[in-house]
């Protein structure tokens, strides 16, 4: 019994220590903003790697999720003779929830794991150490552009995901199942509020982007510099990011749409 309590206490202490290290790391990255002349090209390169290269998975996933929503929505709503509301249902579901959340989960799996593995390998091959010895701070040169790129790319990807999803829903609902196109778009315009729905969805994706990018770069920078260590760090990135996104989504949804 005492051993269990001790083990529980040890785990708690390790968690607090780890959170402390991650926070110090984040402060170091945010404090060391690179000069615009050198930082901007690095940021652009990372935006390409983190954002543009994630487009394919985001677009394809958004399309299929929108199409599935169209099919499911039509089946359920037609029981009540309300299939005309399918556009409203798809848009609200995507903009408020599925857009930010699924994009963040896909982002953690595609870009987050790649960031962790890349930084971990740079650590294992002493590239970060050599940078330090050249008088170049790796937090500014390597970590900061990747963190900011994740932070910027994520909301843009979430918006693209939602747009493609709405279009996919229209393909199924309007083109295939025969819902009147005017109802599809008209109900959507009447019920989706820019501030309450779209902006809140974007705020969610900004928060998710920041958390996912932070977890990814920290896990890479803090990993044990061996093949097993990098593998473990990459797994942790995906698991921790997914849990953080789902947990934060509940909190943000309660705050934004709770109406308590």
């Amino acid at each position, binding site marked *: 019994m005492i051993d269990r309590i001790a083990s529980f206490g040890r785990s708690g202490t390790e968690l607090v220590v780890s959170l402390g290290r991650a926070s110090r790391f984040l402060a170091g990255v945010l404090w060391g903003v690179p000069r615009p002349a*050198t930082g901007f090209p690095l940021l652009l390169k990372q935006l390409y790697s983190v954002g543009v290269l994630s487009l394919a998975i985001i677009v394809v996933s958004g399309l299929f999720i929108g199409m599935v929503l169209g099919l499911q929505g039509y089946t359920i709503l037609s029981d009540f003779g309300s299939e005309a509301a399918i556009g409203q249902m798809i848009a609200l579901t995507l903009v408020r929830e599925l857009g930010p959340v699924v994009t963040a989960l896909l982002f953690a799996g595609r870009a987050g794991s790649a960031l962790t593995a890349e930084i971990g390998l740079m650590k294992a*091959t*002493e*590239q970060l*150490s*050599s940078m*330090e*010895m*050249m*008088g*170049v*701070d790796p937090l500014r*040169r390597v970590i900061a552009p990747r963190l900011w790129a994740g932070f910027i790319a994520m909301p843009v990807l979430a918006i693209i995901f939602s747009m493609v999803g709405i279009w996919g829903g229209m393909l199924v609902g309007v083109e295939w199942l025969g819902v009147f196109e005017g109802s599809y778009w008209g109900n959507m315009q009447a019920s989706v509020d820019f501030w309450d729905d779209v902006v809140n969805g974007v705020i969610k994706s900004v928060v998710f982007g920041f958390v996912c990018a932070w977890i990814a770069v920290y896990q890479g920078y803090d990993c044990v510099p061996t093949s097993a260590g990098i593998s473990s760090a990459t797994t942790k990135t995906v698991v921790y990011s997914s849990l953080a996104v789902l947990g934060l989504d509940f909190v943000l949804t309660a705050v934004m749409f709770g109406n308590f």
Partner: protein
Amino acid sequence: MHSYISLKDVVFSRSGRRIFNGVSVEIPRGKVTAIMGPSGSGKTTLLRLIGGQLQPDSGQIMVDNQPISKLGRTELYAFRRKMGMLFQSGALFTDLSVYENVAFPMRVHTSLPEDMIRDIVLMKLEAVGLRGARELMPSELSGGMNRRVALARSIALDPELIMYDEPFAGQDPIGMGVLVKLIHDLNSSMGLTSVLVSHDVKESLSICHYACIIADGKVIGAGTPAELQEHPSEQVQQFLQGQPDGPVPFHYPSPAAAADFGLAGGAS
């Protein structure tokens, strides 16, 4: 002897293990100093302490009269521009070509025009015999070439101090000969202070002016190569002559063999 680097009573532990227990070393300016010792004796750790990547538990580390372990982050990064370090793996940036790797420190720390950077990069690559390899990527280089490019990069900003971490490890005889020549020539032509960490006794003693041997967390022998060859310590002689048994035993400490093998009289 005018010291460029001075370590006094340095104590350093990691993961509860004492690596250095009061190490004191003086490294003269403008000379090649070899730090030797068995694997795991903390030679690379010593370089990281000198470079300020690790902090000692106690003791003082002075580099060019600056207390390196007490410098702030900004001062430390500025101070490191005077240093070059050749890592055991080379540590080239894998997404940059040979040319861009050597140009990297200049692009970050100077505002030199591109044609001047080009001339300096080609001169540094010429010095290590790889001017013709400038378009190659690190993945296309052999181990020896990789280290020579890393050497060109580490002298790109004309440092005062250069540290070599196991430069000869894993090299074929030709590659080793090239590196020995480069370290010697660079030191004499550029007036560098060179610190060479290695356990390759013959090669290290052939180019160093001064050497010290580290074992068991302390310096067990120091002096010129000739003085070390005559050193009275058995442990120093065992290391220099590569004897398999001696003060450092062949066998790792273990229980009596009879007990382990279950032989008569061995059971307890």
